[in-house]
């Protein structure tokens, strides 16, 4: 039984902390958020330089070969730093599909470019009617004269506009909610018949609504076996769920200690807010929820690492808890900051908004509870 980091992991974390502390000021971040670019290409180049973009990819591909622990460490700090760059979309989701996929050609060439910071990716999987069900796919690739034609719409494709390549889940056989019959394709975002409408998201990121109309795809674009893409998608979404939970934990930690700090400095009725016992006990609740969330995160990471059979249940439990406790914690942080908590100029509100969105990503608490009950 050991919860300590090894030397490499400690070094990794320290380097991330150091970079973000030095080069990722909140005010600068907000300038980028409010710009049309949406994220900083310079920062992205730094990330490549620092090796973050190579983190999860195996050494055979010249990646760093990091596992769930390393990813947890990185994402926690990206959460604390409120990092806006589309790491999740390009590396975890898009890169994850390529890495777990069976298309060796694309795998080799595109992951190399991802690691070099040369291309961006996006995963287009959600549809208007699908809610959080990965198997609920109406977007369809139908046989045409030479190859397939892709038709359908995908919603809230994170990093959809900046992506050079899109990974798309499409139905190649079966009814709309059949777990079989889903194939994953990876295609250039500029391919004919693809229409992207991009927008900011409520947490200050970028996403797109994407329409596919008669887009030609063929076997060379396939990154899963025909009709068997769901397993890959499920694995990638599981990795991504763990990643956003790590990010959420970083945010919860930041919010807890920033709130404590704020109440110690803010004077009302001639004394610091932190001297009011009712507020103290509420901050203690925040602290306990933070630590309980951290425990579930470590538990899920360890169970992933050890490839334990109850991995799925552990991740569902984690996401359920972080979704519920994280949002409650965010609300409390805002409340205890009073008026300051709802201003755009303060980081508190942006942490809060990101936590709120994370609850929804890859299935909210209600959905995760269903998964947990089904898996347990």
């Amino acid at each position, binding site marked *: 039984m050991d919860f300590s980091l090894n030397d490499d992991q400690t070094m990794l974390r320290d380097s991330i902390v150091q970079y973000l502390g030095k080069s990722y000021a909140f005010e600068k971040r907000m300038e980028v958020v409010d710009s049309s670019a949406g994220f900083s290409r310079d920062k992205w180049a730094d990330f490549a330089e620092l090796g973050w973009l190579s983190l999860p990819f195996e050494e055979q591909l010249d990646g760093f070969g990091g596992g769930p622990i390393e990813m947890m460490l990185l994402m926690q700090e990206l959460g604390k730093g409120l990092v806006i760059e589309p790491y999740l979309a390009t590396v975890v989701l898009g890169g994850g599909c390529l890495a777990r996929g069976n298309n060796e050609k694309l795998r080799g060439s595109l992951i190399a470019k991802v690691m070099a910071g040369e291309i961006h990716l996006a995963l287009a999987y959600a549809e*208007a009617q*699908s809610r959080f069900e990965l198997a609920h796919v109406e977007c369809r690739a139908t046989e045409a004269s030479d190859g397939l034609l892709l038709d359908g719409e995908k919603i809230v494709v994170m990093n959809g506009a900046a992506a050079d390549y899109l990974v798309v889940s499409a139905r190649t056989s079966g009814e709309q909610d059949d777990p079989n019959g889903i194939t994953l394709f990876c295609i250039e975002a500029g391919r004919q018949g693809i229409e992207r409408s991009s927008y900011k*998201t409520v947490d200050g990121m970028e*996403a797109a609504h994407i329409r596919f109309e008669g887009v030609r795809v063929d076997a060379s674009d396939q990154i899963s076996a025909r009709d068997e893409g769901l397993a890959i998608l499920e694995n990638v979404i599981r990795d991504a769920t763990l990643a956003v939970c790590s990010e959420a934990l970083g945010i919860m930690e930041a919010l807890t200690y920033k709130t404590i700090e704020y109440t110690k400095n803010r004077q*009302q009725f001639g004394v610091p807010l932190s001297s009011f016992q009712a507020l103290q006990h509420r901050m203690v609740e925040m602290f306990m929820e933070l630590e309980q969330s951290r425990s579930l995160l470590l538990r899920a990471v360890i169970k992933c690492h050890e490839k334990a059979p109850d991995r799925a249940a552990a991740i569902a439990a984690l996401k359920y808890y972080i979704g519920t406790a994280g949002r409650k914690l965010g609300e409390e942080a805002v409340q205890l900051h009073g008026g300051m908590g709802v201003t*755009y*100029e303060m980081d508190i509100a942006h942490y809060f*908004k990101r936590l709120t969105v994370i609850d*929804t990503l890859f299935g909210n608490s209600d959905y995760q509870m*269903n998964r947990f009950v089904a898996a347990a």
Partner: protein
Amino acid sequence: MHVTFSDSEQQFQTEVREFFSQEYPQDVLQKMHDGIMLEKEDFVRGQKAIYEKGWAGVNWPEEYGGTGWSATQKHIFYEEMAAANCPSIVPFGLSMVGPVIYTYGSEAQKQKFLPGILSSDEWWCQGYSEPGSGSDLASLKMRAERDGDEYVLNGTKTWTTLAQHADWMFLLARTNTDVARKQEGISFLLVKMDAPGISLTPIITLDGEHEINSVFFDNVRIPADQLVGEEGKGWTYGKLLLTHERANIAGVAVSQNRLEDLKSLLAQKQASGGAPREVNTFARKIAHVEIQLHALEYTELRTLASVATGKAPGPESSILKIKGTEIQQAIDNLYYELAGYNAIPYLREQFAADYPGQQLAESTDAWAALRYFNFRKASIYGGSNEIQKNIIAKAVLGV
């Protein structure tokens, strides 16, 4: 013990319902329905329609142009207003400063200000909070020094809602610093917003909106007859206003409407896709809030009935604030949960009449996150819920 409406009250209900479905500007209701942000002009047209009907002074006595309505009539009015999905009446003039002026103001002040407030020709904002005094309102630092026939104002007000649209501000300022209790020496003053020395800075809220402001006073001179009542008695007047602010603060009728809407939305998603896997679990969540709201409705009715018999509203009015905002926020949460991914896009413009693109979702889905974010303020402003609990504690514990 009963809550039935008399024949004349039922008649009144019909009249109010017809007003909102016919005389009130229907395009404003349509904007509300579509979730489009209202302009100042929309509010003004709406309030003017109510004014022309003679109903602007809901809580005002008849002698000042008010309705003189009974508690039941007011209840019916607010209920129908919510059922029509009508925007709330902006409170600063009609609910806040108006009652202070007709209660404590001079005859000249009543003549000068009340008509413009009633008709919504003059817009008001509220200068209470300051950067250093939030919950601890009485610690305010803004100075108003008497200089001949004028007061000279220096200081900063903040969280000033809609100050950018206001013609006037009512504010609390310190006219005497040599006092035993910080509640003393505070005066209630009226200031024209175009007075030299006033400047505004917008405060953008977390959802990207400009609703609130900081307002800076740099040697602003106002005529001394813009003092309301006696110098140094401002705290007393201000408290009266807080009671009025709490009228209808429970927002029962609006929340009832929203819960009904949520149920339809759930049924609609169940029919055409996007509903949670366990619909019944979500229905139970709605029901849980609905039951709390049923309780709050009767807590409000009890308060109204008690006020109607001449009793002062007790600590129950703090319950209305706390539970009312908790329920509002719980409903915001339900909308957010139900919306799923549809809540993520930040595309306010998609419901504008001239938007060229496709609407990505039902407006309730599309606005869910922003409304949820914005209304975190509800448990903070108007005396935070923590302050309300202190008030109740004092009243029921006697501590």
